[in-house]
């Protein structure tokens, strides 16, 4: 059981930390749609666009995308595990 969970977490780390460097930089389906139709002109700057990890980088330097990815994995894991653990029904069988 533990082995599976550790393996699953490791796969996520590998994807976010390493594979993320190979991701396409082209706009995704929604971005492409709003760019091609001109809707994108109405897009507002993200209020946190100047923040440290904005756009999965470190201070705007996307050499650190893998680092941002690993950070995101840790944050999502901590938040979601915490939430789901609190929400769960307590079982007597362990």
């Amino acid at each position: 059981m533990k082995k599976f969970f550790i393996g699953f977490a490791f796969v996520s780390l590998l994807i976010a930390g390493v594979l993320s460097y190979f991701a396409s930089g082209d706009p995704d389906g929604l971005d492409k749609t709003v760019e091609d139709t001109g809707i994108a002109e109405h897009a507002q700057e993200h209020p946190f666009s100047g923040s440290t990890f904005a756009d999965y980088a470190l201070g705007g330097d996307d050499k650190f995308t893998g680092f941002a990815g690993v950070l995101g994995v840790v944050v999502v894991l901590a938040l979601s595990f915490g939430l789901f653990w609190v929400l769960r029904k307590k079982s007597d069988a362990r």
Partner: protein
Amino acid sequence: MHMSDGLLNAPVSVAFLVIAALGVGFALVKARADLDDRTAPMAGLVATFIFAVQMINFPILPGASGHLLGGALAAILVGPYVGALCVTIVLVVQALLFADGGLTALGANVTNMALIGTATGFLVAVALRKVAEKGKGGLAVVAFVSAFVNTLFAATGFVVEYAIGGAGGVEIGKVALLMWGLHALIGIGEGLITAVTVTSVASIRPDLVHLLKGSRKPLEVRS
């Protein structure tokens, strides 16, 4: 598929913040029944995996890419309510920590990807449950189809929101055609990723696949 602020007008953005809050609240209440000492850690890992895979934009056409949304993937593995919460957590972290997806747009983004995507993916998966129980091939097909459908419906969410109160007054047919065309291609990627992920989990830990819970013929466990 994370929209920025400003693409939808303020009243529509607020309306979808309310809709998203109601939907997530409902999921929070219903999720309890699907969470125990075994499935809670699994749910955390599913959210984490979706975050990681969403970083990987894959090319679909010259100049356009797509990424996993994760609704069907989450719903098949941990159920629709927990699944919706998984995708919501991912979207909140992306918006707050990585400036990916606007803040006033968060309601619409959660509605499309976490609520619509997960619900439609789950409904298709349940409708095809008998096929999924036939074995790994059946499960792969069901995962692919439900993920493809979740992508198209999540895209439709944006089309509807834009029709109600989008900025710029672009003809809705044009928006719909682009969104559906592009997301039909993205849906193939979503389907493949979902099929590979779900069947991998099912080969190692079939007991952790929510869709197969109570299945008469559990998939054989390879050890």
